[in-house]
C-alpha cells in the first residue's frame, strides 16, 4: 500500500511538470522527455507517455497492475519563462537535489507564478516590434509611428477579444480587421503613406511563429499527431489574419 502511494506521487509530479510545459508552449518531444526523465530519476523502471497538444496520457509500469492517468489540456498560452523554469526543476531532480515532495512544491510554485512581463510592457513590445518590422521591410520612417500605434492596438484587441470570446480564430480575425481599418484611417488622414507596409508591419506580432517552429520540430522528432495538429493551428491563425485583412481590403 505504501509503495502504491509513492508511485502515485511520482505520477503527480511528472504530470504537473508536463502540464505546465505543454500549457506554456513547449515542444511535444521536450514534454515527453522531461516527464520520462523525472520518472527515471525517482526510480521508475518503465514509464510511457503520450502527449498531444490537447492532453497527456502517462502510465507507469510496476510490479502491480500498470497505473495510467490522463490530463486534459484546454488552455494554451505562450510563456517561455515557465518552460525554462520547469526545465531547471527537472534538471535538479535528475541531479538528485530534490525529493518527490520538494519537487512537487517547486513545480506548484512555477505553476502559480505570474507572467514575467505585465500586459502593458507586452503591448509596448508589440508596438515597437511593428515599427521595427515596418522599417525592416523597406518602409519609410514617416510610417513608423502609425505602424507602432496600429500594431499595439491590434495586439491589445486580440488579447481583449480572446478574454471575452475564448475562440482563437475569432479574436485574431477581429484583431486583423481592426488593424486594417486603423491603417486605412491613418493613410486617409495623411499621417501614414504606404498602406501595405503599415498593415504588414503591424500584423507581424500576431504571426504564429512559435507554432510553426514547434510544428516542424515535432514532425521531425516523429510526433506526427502533435506536429500535424500544431501545423493546423498555425494555418488557422494565418488564415484568420489573412481573411481579416482581406475583408478590409475588399471594401476599400
Amino acid at each position, binding site marked *: 500500500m505504501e509503495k502504491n502511494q509513492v508511485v502515485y506521487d511520482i505520477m503527480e509530479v511528472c504530470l504537473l511538470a508536463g502540464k505546465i510545459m505543454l500549457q506554456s508552449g513547449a515542444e511535444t518531444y521536450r514534454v515527453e522527455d522531461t516527464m520520462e526523465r523525472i520518472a527515471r530519476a525517482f526510480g521508475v523502471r518503465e514509464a510511457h507517455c503520450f502527449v498531444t497538444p490537447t492532453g497527456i496520457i502517462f502510465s507507469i509500469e510496476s510490479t502491480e497492475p500498470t497505473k495510467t492517468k490522463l490530463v486534459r489540456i484546454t488552455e494554451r498560452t505562450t510563456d517561455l519563462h515557465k518552460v525554462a523554469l520547469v526545465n531547471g526543476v527537472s534538471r535538479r531532480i535528475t541531479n538528485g537535489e530534490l525529493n518527490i515532495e520538494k519537487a512537487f512544491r517547486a513545480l506548484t510554485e512555477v505553476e502559480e507564478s505570474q507572467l514575467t512581463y505585465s500586459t502593458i510592457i507586452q503591448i509596448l513590445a508589440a508596438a515597437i516590434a511593428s515599427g521595427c518590422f515596418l522599417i525592416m521591410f523597406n518602409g519609410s520612417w514617416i510610417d513608423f509611428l502609425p505602424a507602432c500605434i496600429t500594431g499595439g492596438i491590434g495586439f491589445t484587441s486580440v488579447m481583449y477579444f480572446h478574454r471575452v470570446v475564448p475562440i482563437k480564430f475569432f479574436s485574431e480575425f477581429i484583431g486583423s480587421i481592426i488593424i486594417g481599418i486603423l491603417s486605412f484611417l491613418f493613410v486617409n488622414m495623411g499621417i501614414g503613406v504606404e498602406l501595405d507596409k503599415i498593415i504588414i508591419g503591424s500584423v507581424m506580432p500576431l504571426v504564429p511563429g512559435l507554432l510553426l517552429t514547434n510544428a516542424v520540430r515535432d514532425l521531425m522528432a516523429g510526433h506526427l499527431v502533435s506536429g500535424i495538429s500544431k501545423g493546423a493551428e498555425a494555418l488557422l491563425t494565418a488564415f484568420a489574419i*489573412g481573411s481579416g485583412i482581406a475583408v478590409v481590403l475588399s471594401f476599400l
Partner: protein
Amino acid sequence: MYILQHLLLSFLAAAAFGIIFNAPKSSLIQSGFVGMLGWMIYILFTMNGADAVNATLIASFVIAVASQVFAKLYRTPIIIFIVAGIIPLVPGGMAYDAMRNFVENDYNIALALAAKAFLISGAIAMGIVFSEVINQLIRKTAITKKSES
C-alpha cells in the same frame, strides 16, 4: 547606414518578440542577437541578388545553429532563441501581397505569390531541420567516442 539601421532594428524586433512570448529576462539579449544574425544574413544575401528562398534557408540554418550554441551555454530550452530569430524571416509581406491579389481577383499573380510564400516557409523549416540533424550527428559521434575510450 542602411546596414546599421537594419542591425539595430532587427535586434530590437527580436528582443520585443522575446517579451511577447514571455521569454526569461536574462535571455532577451541573446534572442535579440540571434534575430539580428539571421536577418543580417538574409539581407546581405538578397541584396547581392540571391533568391529569397535560398537566403531564408541559409539564414534559418544559422539561426538554429546559433540557438543551439546559446541553449548549450545557458542551459535553457532551445525554443526560446529559435522563435525570436525565425519571426523576421516569416514571409508576412508576401502572404499579404498574395491575399491582396486574391481580393482583387488577380488569381494568377496571387497563386504565384502564395506559392513563393509557401516555399519560404518550407525553407525556414528545412534550415531548422538541417541544423538539428547536424547537432544529433555531432552528439552521436561524441557519445560513441566516449564509449570507445
